[in-house]
């Protein structure tokens, strides 16, 4: 019974740790200073006619006086929605990998990603099915589960083989990268084995029910192992680069697509003024020690320059 209790507690703990760790990573990145503008076009939130070819508001004369402040609704519809669509399209189709990668990883990478999405959907379906007890849902869950495990296993194992056998990829693939893929492959292979031993998913659903209701119960080893591995993965993911799907928000929205120019007195201006008060600690010979960034910028010539 001790082990059964462990599986219940571990399942809940994994969810709590995942949420906490992911939130902590998000908080850590969010708390970093506002960076300089460093956008790269095309940018999805530009006006539709410009977005088509990668144009920007800077194609207009006197653009600074033409930019209007957006309403909250317009901010969502015209700004965030096109960004979300662009990021979502990449997450779902991996179109950039397909268009530009010459190492034929698109098929495996897409399979792996869809395997992960489907596996999560499978787990959610089992939870819902446990609460509503629907035969139709159980049937859908059965299909989704198999699809998830087959796709995921093909993707993860295919990527391991592709990386190991392609010298240009192998050079950049560390043991940890193989471990990550093998970890995922283990989850999907276990999932397949557990499904083979329980094609109606009755034991899977019972296991989910025991976790949700805090009533530990015995389950087939393959079922327990599949979920334990997945829970372990949940705990591990926020500390690995597999968190990249969340990071995209910061990379794009606050980096490559951040084209907002600074207005005097704005929040951005205030933040910049605050950051310009940081002391410069760099030691280069052209840098005057002990000054703030603003003072440094106002110091054109420095001691040691030839007159």
């Amino acid at each position, binding site marked *: 019974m001790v082990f059964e209790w462990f599986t219940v507690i571990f399942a809940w703990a994994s969810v709590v740790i995942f949420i906490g760790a992911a939130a902590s990573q998000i908080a850590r990145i969010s708390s970093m200073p506002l960076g300089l503008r460093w956008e790269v076009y095309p940018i999805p939130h530009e006006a539709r006619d410009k977005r088509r070819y990668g144009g920007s508001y*800077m194609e207009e004369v*006197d653009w600074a006086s033409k930019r209007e402040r957006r309403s909250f609704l317009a901010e969502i519809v015209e700004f965030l929605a096109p960004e979300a669509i662009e990021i979502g399209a990449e997450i779902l189709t991996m179109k950039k990998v397909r268009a530009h990668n010459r190492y034929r990883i698109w098929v495996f990478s897409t399979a792996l990603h869809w395997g992960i999405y489907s596996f999560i959907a499978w787990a959610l379906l089992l939870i819902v099915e446990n609460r509503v007890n629907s035969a139709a849902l159980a049937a859908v869950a059965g299909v989704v589960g198999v699809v998830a495990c087959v796709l995921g296993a093909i993707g993860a194992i295919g990527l391991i083989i592709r990386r190991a056998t392609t010298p240009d990829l192998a050079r950049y693939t560390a043991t940890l990268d193989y471990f990550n893929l093998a970890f995922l492959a283990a989850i999907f292979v276990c999932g397949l084995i557990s499904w083979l031993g329980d094609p109606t998913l009755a034991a899977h659903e019972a296991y989910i029910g025991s976790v949700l209701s805090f009533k530990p119960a015995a389950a087939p080893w393959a079922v327990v192992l599949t979920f334990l591995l997945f829970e372990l993965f949940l705990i591990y993911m926020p500390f690995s680069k597999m968190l990249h799907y969340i990071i995209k928000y910061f990379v794009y929205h606050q980096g490559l697509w951040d084209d907002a120019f*600074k207005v005097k007195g704005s929040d951005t201006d205030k933040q910049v003024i605050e950051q310009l008060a940081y002391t410069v600690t760099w030691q280069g010979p052209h840098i005057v020690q002990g000054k703030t960034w603003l003072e440094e910028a106002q110091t054109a010539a420095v001691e040691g320059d030839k007159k």
Partner: protein
Amino acid sequence: MSDKTIRFKDVARLSNEPLASLSADDLMPIPGLEDLPPLPAPRAKWLETYDLSLDGFSDLDIPMPKTPEEQERLVRGFLSGLEKLLDPQNNWTFAKLFRLSLDYCLHCQTCSEACHVYLGSGRQEIYRPTFRSEILRRIYQRYFTPAGKLLGPLLGADIEVNFKTVWRLLELSYRCNICRRCAQVCPAGIDNALIAREIRKLFSQELGLAPAELLKKGTRQHLRAGSSTGMNPAAFKNSVEFIEEIIEEKTGKKMPVPVDKKGADILLIHNAGEFLSWPENPAAFAILFDAAGINWTLSSELLGYDAVNYGAWFDDVELARVALRHVSIARELGVKKIVIGECGHAHKAICVVADRVLPGDLSLSEIPRESCLPLLWDIVRSGAIRFDPSRNDFPITLHDSCNVVRLMGIVQPQREIVKAVCAQPLREMEPHGVYNYCCGGGSGFAIMDTLNFSQWRNNVSARMKVKQILEAFGDVLDPGIRKYVIAACSNCKGTLRDAINYYDLWEQHGIWYGGLADLMVNAMADLPGPYLNWNEEM
């Protein structure tokens, strides 16, 4: 050493033998230019003094550290700089994107095929966009993360930092044009070009190490003498007189060029290299602005006549210093806005990157900074000047400056202008617009000519552009047909000038280059004769 056998830890190899050796046979073929000469070996004298152990090329005429103390000092400075680069407060300008790019690269190598340097070199491993990033990443993991210290080899954190590692990494940071085509195609948004820039920054801001053309003769000279060309205000005024002579010669009219005109609407700032190398370009601007009735001025203040800001390529402190001076001059003159002439990196530096190093009254909302291209299109659209496209009846292609197009999204105005002032349809390079390839001179390479660096530039980084140009003019390569490559950027022009000479494209194929304003003036119906000089001064 064979390129295919390179391991990351080879960067720490103490030998002076280059990590990779380039041969002309390895480089990307350019159809029509099959019989190119072999790459010359570096001079024996250089090898005694300088470190060319990356690829046999260098722009850094800095003697390599000889004594163990000097070498140790270099290593310590590097690690100290890397620590600052990773620290959000010390590196507030780029820490977030830099850290995310270091931490979340998935090593899919999708970016490689986007890089003109990698492709132009015939896919040499050391020029892959991820190669230098991976070296820095492994050093960072080994020296600055608990996991790397504990599990080093499992993470790939296996690179030893010695003075050779440091020097080769410095060289590697100057094998990327920072055109950011790699970031554009990365499925995770990782910016390997930014990592290259940050490595440059580490060396400059912590150790004062940078190509002389960028720091000593670049930003330092710019801030001290007024221009990175060394041009002082008196010399600038002489240049203006020379421009007035060009205008009179070409238009038959005396036209004073306004300088330091208080309360003008526009302060126009050119790359000062234009005054020295292509004075017909600032003259063309003066003719167009005068004909369109624009109330504008140049400035003769220190820095006010040189729009360049090399800090954008390698040093945030220098970036802020130059930008602050530019904007302050505009404020003192009381102009409504700054317009940047045909200089790509100057566009990006003052209109985009430096936006958040200038507080309050110097914000973009208070003193707008704009590209000249929308204004030039506005002039054409307004009908204030009569253009006769038949005067530009020759094949034309357009080189997009990365800084203006991919990094600012200014794509259409220049194309609309070409449509309006040229007789023949524009021959677009493939790819073009925001997906263009860099000319090979970006991020300072155009002006870096020390030791044998220009050989590398012409053979490797400019190679893709030469191929594109030849392809754009593929059906009219007869040298009897004059062809014009528009390059609305001083550094792109400098690179094209060199490449055209190196590959003999004028003699062999009648291919020349020049600015956009020059082409517009050439089409002005009221002008007594042609404005373009083609290759007459050569």
